[in-house]
C-alpha cells in the first residue's frame, strides 16, 4: 500500500498492508489507494458479508484494470428487484483520489449498519476510471484523466510518443519556465513564484514560456503533446457530449468503462438516485442554469417548410401542447404523438438546463446540507467546487436517466484570508441570509463597495438598490441570487489567479511548501536554461491523508439523509361508495411519503423511470370506468394522487389492490365491496 505523503510515496510491506486493510474493514479510512488495493478492499468487504454483497466486474479498462461494482442489499443477485437502489460512482475522471476513498468509506459504513440496506440496494463503483487513477500512486506522480487507450493526440506519424518526463528526478511532473523572446508569461510582483499572462495593453511584456516538465521526445518541436492515454472516462457520457475533443472519446460510451455504466444503468430501472464522487458538488451547489440553446417549450417556432404541412404559422410560436394537438390528427390511427415525436420532428434538440421544478429540491437540499455541515463544524470557506462538465456522469444521470443526481467533491483548497475590504467583507452569502432591516442598516458606501467588488453593472447604484429593498421590490435573498447569476468580476490587474494563490497559501501553511515547488534551474537538452517548479499535481484537489478521515466522516453520511428523501409510494386510503345495483365507486389515493417527487420533472420528460401501476384484482369485476391496470405518471413529493373507478360486481367480494413501481416501492391492500 502506498500512503500519500505529498512528494514521495512510501511503500509498505505486505503484512502492514493486511493490518491496514483490517483496520479499514472496521471503517477506518486511511488515505488513498491504488486501483489494485481498491479491488482488494472491495473483495474483502464482500467476503466478510457474503449474504448481502456481490462484486461484479463491469468492464476491463484498456490498461487491463477491472472496473468493479459492489452491490449491497437484501436482494443481491436476484433477478427481480423490489427495493429502490442508489448508484454511487467514484472518481469517473480518475484524478480525484479522495473520491475513491469516499466510495470505499461508504461501502464500509453501509455494511456496518444493516439498517442502511434494509430498504435500499447499493450499487457502488469505487473507481470508474482506474487507469487514470493509477497515475496518482505511480511514479513519477502526474495528473491525467485519460484511460490507457492509445491515442494519437497530435495526429502525427506516432502514437503516445511524447509524454512528460521527470527531468529533475523528484518523482513529480511539474512545470518548466523558460525565458523566451516570445514568452507571454511574467512572474507577479508580490510572489515571483506565481506566473500570470502579461497584459500588453498595460505596457507589459512577457518574459517566460511555460511548458509541462519534459523533453521533445519525437523531435517535432512540441513538448509533451502526445503522452500515453486516450479517453477521459468522466466526460464520455451522452449528455452534451462533444465529438472531436482532445480527450472526450470518439462518441459517448466509446470507452469500455463508460459503455459498461450506460449498459448497467439501462438494465437496472430500480436505480432511484445517483451520487457521483468527483469534482462537482450538486449537494452544495445546485446544477447550473443559463446555458444557451435550450428551446423554450412554450415558445416553439415551426420552420417554414414544416409549418404549411401541419397548418402552423411560421412567424408565430406555439406551446408543445398546441403542437401535439395540431399534429395528432395527421398521424395514422394508433400512433400517439407525444413531446418526443414533436421534438424530434422539429429538431428541437435536448434539454440543457435543469428544470425549475427540480431546481427547487436541489436548492432546498443544498440549504439543508450547508446547515448540516455547519452543525458538524465544517464552516471554513473553501474554493468553489468545479462545475459539472459536459459529458459527465452526473449530467447524464439527471438529463437522461431522469434521476435526482447528486455529486460531491469533498475538498477544495481553503479560501485564502482576504485583505480588509471597503465593504467590510460583506459577501453574497451573507446578503442572502440578511433580513430587510439588516440590509437597510448597512451604510450606503459599504453597499456601493460591495456592489463594485462583486461586479454589479455600473447602473446598479447603491441608492437604487436600497430603494428597491426598502420598497419590498426585491428581498436581500432575491438580490443575492441575482448577484450570483452575474458574471464573476475579472481579477484585478497584477493579481495572481485565486486558485494558485490559494494553493500557495495552503502549500506554505499545511504542506511544508510541497504543494507548489520553488523554481529550480535545470539544463534542458533543447530549451537550454530552464527552471522547473510550480504546482504539484493533485495538491489542489487532494488533501493530505491525515485530513481524509475527518472529511469523509462528515460528508459521506449525507448520502443517508438524501436516501431518506427518496420517493416512497404507498396506497394511502380507499373509499368505496355503493351506487346500487352492484355498482361501486372506488376512490384510491397513492401517496408519496418521500420528499422527492416520483419521478423528477426531467424524469417525466424523459419517461425514463417507468410509471407507477395500480392494479385491481377481484372475481367477476366489470370496469365501467377506469381500467384494471392504471399507470400513474407522477406523484409529487409528500403529496397524494387520487384515482377513481366505477366497478360493477354482482356479488360482494374482495378487491386486491396492488401498487408497483420500478424504483419507488410497492404496496398491497385488500378491501371489501358489498356485503
Amino acid at each position, binding site marked *: 500500500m502506498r500512503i500519500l505523503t505529498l512528494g514521495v510515496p512510501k511503500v509498505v510491506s505486505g503484512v502492514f498492508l493486511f493490518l491496514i486493510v483490517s483496520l479499514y474493514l472496521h471503517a477506518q479510512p486511511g488515505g488513498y489507494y491504488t486501483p489494485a488495493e481498491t479491488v482488494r478492499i472491495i473483495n474483502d468487504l464482500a467476503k466478510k458479508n457474503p449474504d448481502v454483497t456481490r462484486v461484479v466486474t463491469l468492464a476491463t479498462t484498456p490498461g487491463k484494470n477491472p472496473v468493479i461494482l459492489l452491490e449491497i442489499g437484501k436482494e443481491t443477485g436476484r433477478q427481480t428487484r423490489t427495493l429502490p437502489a442508489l448508484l454511487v460512482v467514484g472518481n469517473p475522471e480518475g484524478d480525484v483520489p479522495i473520491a475513491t476513498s469516499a466510495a470505499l468509506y461508504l461501502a464500509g459504513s453501509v455494511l456496518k449498519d444493516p439498517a442502511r440496506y434494509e430498504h435500499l440496494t447499493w450499487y457502488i463503483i469505487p473507481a470508474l476510471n482506474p487507469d487514470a487513477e493509477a497515475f496518482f500512486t505511480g511514479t513519477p506522480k502526474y495528473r491525467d484523466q485519460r484511460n490507457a487507450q492509445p491515442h494519437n493526440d497530435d495526429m502525427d506519424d506516432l502514437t503516445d510518443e511524447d509524454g512528460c518526463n521527470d527531468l529533475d528526478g523528484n518523482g513529480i511532473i511539474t512545470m518548466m519556465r523558460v525565458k523566451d523572446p516570445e514568452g507571454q508569461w511574467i512572474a507577479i510582483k508580490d510572489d515571483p513564484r506565481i506566473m500570470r499572462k502579461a497584459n500588453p495593453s498595460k505596457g507589459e511584456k512577457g518574459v517566460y514560456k511555460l511548458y509541462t516538465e519534459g523533453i521533445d521526445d519525437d523531435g517535432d518541436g512540441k513538448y509533451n503533446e502526445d503522452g500515453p492515454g486516450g479517453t477521459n472516462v468522466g466526460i464520455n457520457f451522452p449528455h452534451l457530449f462533444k465529438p472531436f475533443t482532445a480527450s472526450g472519446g470518439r462518441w459517448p460510451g466509446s470507452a469500455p468503462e463508460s459503455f459498461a455504466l450506460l449498459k448497467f444503468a439501462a438494465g437496472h430501472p430500480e436505480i432511484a438516485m445517483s451520487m457521483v464522487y468527483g469534482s462537482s458538488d450538486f449537494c452544495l451547489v445546485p446544477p447550473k442554469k443559463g446555458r444557451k440553446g435550450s428551446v423554450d417549450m412554450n415558445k416553439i417556432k415551426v420552420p417554414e417548410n414544416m409549418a404549411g404541412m401541419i397548418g402552423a404559422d411560421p412567424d408565430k410560436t406555439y406551446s408543445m401542447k398546441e403542437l401535439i394537438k395540431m399534429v395528432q390528427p395527421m398521424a395514422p390511427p394508433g400512433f400517439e404523438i407525444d*413531446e418526443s415525436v414533436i421534438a*424530434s420532428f422539429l*429538431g*428541437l*434538440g435536448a434539454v440543457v438546463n435543469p428544470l425549475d421544478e427540480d431546481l427547487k429540491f436541489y436548492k432546498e437540499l443544498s440549504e439543508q446540507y450547508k446547515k448540516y455541515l455547519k452543525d458538524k463544524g465544517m464552516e471554513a470557506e473553501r474554493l468553489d467546487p468545479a462545475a459539472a462538465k459536459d459529458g459527465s456522469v452526473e449530467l447524464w444521470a439527471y438529463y437522461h436517466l431522469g434521476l435526482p443526481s447528486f455529486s460531491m467533491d469533498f475538498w477544495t483548497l481553503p479560501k485564502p484570508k482576504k485583505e480588509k475590504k471597503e465593504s467590510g467583507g460583506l459577501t453574497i452569502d451573507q446578503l442572502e441570509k440578511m433580513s430587510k432591516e439588516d440590509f437597510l442598516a448597512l451604510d450606503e458606501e459599504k453597499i456601493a463597495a460591495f456592489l463594485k467588488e462583486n461586479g454589479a453593472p455600473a447602473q446598479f447604484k447603491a441608492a437604487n438598490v436600497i430603494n428597491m429593498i426598502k420598497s419590498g421590490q426585491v428581498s436581500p435573498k432575491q438580490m443575492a441570487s441575482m448577484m450570483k447569476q452575474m458574471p464573476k468580476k475579472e481579477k484585478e490587474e497584477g493579481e495572481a489567479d485565486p486558485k494558485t494563490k490559494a494553493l500557495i497559501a495552503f502549500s506554505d501553511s499545511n504542506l511544508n511548501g510541497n504543494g507548489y515547488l520553488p523554481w529550480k534551474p535545470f539544463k534542458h537538452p533543447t530549451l537550454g536554461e530552464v527552471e522547473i517548479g510550480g504546482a504539484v499535481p493533485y495538491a489542489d484537489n487532494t488533501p493530505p491523508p491525515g485530513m481524509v478521515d475527518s472529511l469523509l466522516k462528515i460528508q459521506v453520511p449525507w448520502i443517508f439523509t438524501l436516501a431518506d428523501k427518496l420517493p416512497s409510494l404507498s396506497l394511502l386510503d380507499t373509499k368505496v361508495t355503493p351506487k346500487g345495483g352492484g355498482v361501486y365507486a372506488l376512490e384510491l389515493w397513492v401517496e408519496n411519503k418521500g420528499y422527492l417527487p416520483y419521478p423528477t420533472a426531467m424524469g417525466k*420528460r424523459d*419517461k425514463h423511470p417507468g410509471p407507477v401501476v395500480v392494479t385491481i384484482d377481484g372475481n367477476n369485476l366489470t370496469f365501467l370506468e377506469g381500467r384494471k391496470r392504471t399507470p400513474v405518471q407522477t406523484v409529487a413529493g409528500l403529496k397524494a394522487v387520487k384515482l377513481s373507478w366505477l366497478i360493477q360486481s354482482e356479488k360482494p367480494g374482495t378487491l386486491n389492490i396492488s401498487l*408497483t413501481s420500478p424504483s419507488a416501492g410497492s404496496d398491497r391492500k385488500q378491501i371489501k365491496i358489498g356485503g
Partner: protein
Amino acid sequence: MKRYYILTAFLLFFVVVSTGMAQDSKVTVPLRFDHYYPYEQVVAALKALNKAYPSLTHLNLVGHSEENRQIWAITINNPKTGKESDKPGVYVDGNIHGNEIQASEVCLYFVNYLLTNYGKNDKITKLVDKNAYYVIPTVNVDGRYHFFHDANTPSTNRGLRRPKDDDHDGLVNEDFPDDLDGDGNICIMRKRDPNGKYKTDPEDARLMIRVKPGEKGEWTILGQEGIDNDGDGRINEDAEGYVDPNRNWGYNWAPPYVQSGAGDYPFSGLGIKAIAKFILDRPNIIMVWAFHNNGGMILRGPSTKAEGKLNTSDISVYDYLGKNGEKIVPGYRYLISWKDLYSTYGDFTDFTDNIVGAYSLVGELFRTADETYSKPGKTSGGDDEIFGGSSNERSRERLKFNDHLAMGELYKPWTPFHHPVYGDIEIGGWVKMSSRLPHPFMLEDLVHRNASAVIFSAEQTPEIKMEVTGKKKTGKNLYQIRIRLTNSKAMPSMTYHSVKKKAYPMDMLKVLGTQVKVVAGGKLVNEYTGQTNYKKYKPEVQFVQVPGFGKTDYQFLVEGKGTVTILFESRKAGKKTVTFKL
C-alpha cells in the same frame, strides 16, 4: 416539389398501413432477382456466392442480433492485386429497418454482379481489382426475419427487437397488431357507419373518399387490424421495440425524449455495436452506401441543421456522386437529409461520415409513382406520394396496376369479419408486400440501377499515382527532389472533413534511406518559382491529402547518397512507393 418531400418525410416518420411470401427457391449462383430473399435465404445466398468465388470473397460473422440471429458480411477482395487494407474500401449495407427488405436484394445483386462479371466485363474486372468491398445485405436480421414470417403492414417491424415500453404503461410490447383473418397481412379495419367520415369512392368501390360537409357518411376507419391485447382500451399501441437501429449510432446521438427510437444509449443495439466494430476495424473504408425504402432519394448528410454545412470541397464530391446517381436511377432525387427530409440524431451515415471519414449516402429505394397504369408521360398524381395512397387519383391508378400488372397480389379486397369489440367490420387494403416494395417483376430493374449507382461511386474512390517530377543536384551531396501525387478520381485521399476535424492522422509522404538526411521538405506551392512551405520539424515526414481530380507536389532537399525510397501511405487510398538513386 418541396412539399412532396416533406410529405414523404412524414410518411417515413410515422408508421403506416398490409403480406405475401417469397417463393421457397433454392439459392444458386448466379442469384436470381425475381423474388425476395427471406433472412435464411440471404445467408444461404452469401454462402453460395462465397462458395462459387472462394478466391475473391470471404465471409465474416459480424455479430449477433437481439434474438441471436447471425449478421453476415461478405468481403470482395482480389488478393492478387493487394491486401484489403491497402485498397480503398467500399461498404454497402441495407435493411437496417426490418421492413425495408429490397435493400438486401440491392446488396446481393451488387455482390452477384461484381463476381459474375469479373473477368468478363473489363470495367467490373478493374473495379474488383481496385477496391475492397464490404457488404452486409441485412443489418436488421431480426426485423427481416419477422417481416417475412409474421403478419405485418408494409411499415411494421422496422425496429430492433429490444423490449421497449412504447406507451409508458409499465408493460413492454404487450399490444401488437393482430392478423385477425390469418392471411399474413396486417390490413385496415373499417366499419359501416352512417356517421362515418368516409364514403365509397364511386370510381373504385375498394377506395374510400372523405365525405364533404353535409354529405352522408358510410364508413369509419378503425385503424390497423388488431384487438386490444392488454385490455387498456387502446388497440395495437405497443408493438415490437421501438428502438430504431438507424438512431442508435454514436455520432450526434440524442436520447429518446429528443427523438423516439434512439435506444437507451448509443450502440445499445447488439448488432449495431458489432457492425460499428466491423467498420472501425476496416479504416480503409472511404465510401458507404446504406439502402432503405422508400421515396426514390439519394440522401447525403448532415442529418441535423445544428451540425452546420459540410465542407464545400466534400459537397462537390457528394454532388458528383449524387447528381450522377439521379441519372442512373431515373426519378430519384439527390437530397440533403435534414433539410429535405427531417432531422435525425445518431444515424448510421452521420457516423460513417464523421467518425469513419467515408463519403456516405443513403439510397431510399422505390417510388409508388412507378406503379403506373397510363400512357407514357401521363402518370396520375406524379410525385404526389402520400402514405396509404390517400390521393385518390393515384390510389385508383395503383389499384389498376394491382389488377392488371400484379394480378391482384398487392391489395386485399374488403372482407367481412366479426371483431370482438367492434362487431361486424371489414378488413382490407394494401398488403404487406405492397406500397414500399416493387413488385418482383420490377425488382431486377430497381436492383440493377441502384447497384449501378454504387458502382459509379466505387469507380470514384481515390486512384493515386506517384511520380518523381524533379531530381537535381543543388549543392555538394545535396539534391532537390520533387514528388507529384496525382489522383484521377473524384474522391480525395481523405475527406476534407476528416482533415479539418483531425479525425485521424493525415496521409503521409515519407522519405526513407539509410544514407540520406532530409534537410528540408514541404509542400511545393509554385512549381515554377519553387516556392515551398517547408515543414520546420521532421521534414522527412509530410502530412498530405491528395485532392480529387487533382494533384499535389512536394519538394525535398536531401543530403547524402545511395538509394532513396519515397513512400506514400494513406489510410484509404493505399500505399505507393518510388525508389531511385541519388
